[in-house]
């Protein structure tokens, strides 16, 4: 089941450079995925080596290899993970391909940036129901903007009135660090 996610993908393939966003004032040595303005720890121009993280390795495991890993866990946890895997495995192939691409993109980020993005993705999905739509619309808008325009929007009083400080951080960190693969329709 699982190898179907990445059967056509070779492990340890270096991630291609991320597509540069249009930026009116991009510094000469940017790789198009620089650190998040106003926040974010990662170093600019960090090497984009794809070191497979746990998720990527999981997707590349054969069923036998996965079983060997699972059987070391307590029974209850095994059962929970099997249910999760079963659910994920029944996703449409396009969804699986997308997730696999996103995971490879994450694994090519510097470790601190990767952790920050995962943290904020998690915070996003835990937002109250009534905040999801405005956050979603704004995140999409921000991700499609040139950097200078995005920064201006993030720093505007109007923006700060619309979103709580935590929501502002989520939008700032994700819009500045998520690969464009995360936009819907890609």
């Amino acid at each position: 089941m699982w190898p179907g996610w990445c059967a056509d993908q070779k492990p340890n393939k270096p991630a291609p450079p991320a597509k540069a966003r249009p930026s009116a004032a991009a510094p000469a040595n940017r790789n198009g995925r620089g650190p998040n303005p106003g926040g974010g720890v990662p170093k600019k121009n960090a090497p984009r080596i794809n070191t497979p993280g746990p998720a990527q390795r999981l997707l590349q495991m054969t069923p036998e290899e996965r079983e060997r890993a699972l059987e070391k866990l307590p029974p209850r946890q095994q059962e929970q993970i099997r249910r999760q895997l079963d659910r994920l495995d029944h996703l449409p192939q396009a969804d699986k391909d997308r997730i696999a691409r996103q995971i490879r993109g994450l694994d090519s980020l510097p470790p601190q940036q990767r952790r920050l993005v995962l943290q904020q993705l998690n915070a996003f999905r835990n937002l109250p129901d009534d905040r999801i739509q405005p956050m979603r619309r704004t995140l999409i808008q921000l991700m499609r903007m040139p950097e200078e325009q995005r920064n201006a929007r993030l720093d505007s009083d109007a923006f700060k009135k619309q979103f709580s400080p935590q929501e502002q951080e989520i939008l700032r960190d994700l819009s500045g660090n998520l690969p464009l693969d995360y936009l819907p329709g890609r």
Partner: protein
Amino acid sequence: MNCPLETHEGSALLLAYSSGRLEAESTVRLQRHLEACSGCRQFVENQSAVWRALDSWEAPPVSTDFDRRLYQRIEQQVSWWDMLIRPFRPVFQSRSLPIAAAAGVLIMAGVLLDRPAVTPPASPQESAQVEALQPDQVQHAVDEVEMLNQFNHLMRSEPADPTSKM
């Protein structure tokens, strides 16, 4: 009393006074000076405003999973560190080791540890990678995949979609 505003030391006195950290004897002397010195009174008033403003700046609460994430990182890093350091453990415990040699070992270990990457370098052998996937990492990996799936779903959803949140 000379006017404290004239020196940095004196300003330090005014700072301590305006934050309530000045000891009693100096407080009494300074209060007598303040009665006569409008400059120092203004300083204290302005600095008190600064203290109050800074007091009002509360930090957000700590994430509930802060400790869990930290211990997870420690577990991942420490196992690698332990593998690295095991051959040198007698070195660190020995008091008779020449300082330069011990420093050299520490510098080497420190250089290696200062690398930001936690995950060991990927091996071309897929089975070797799979062997290295610890049971705890399986849960973590599955959670990560599920989170991405949920995020994608949320990003696709429109308000009319009854299943807008999983």
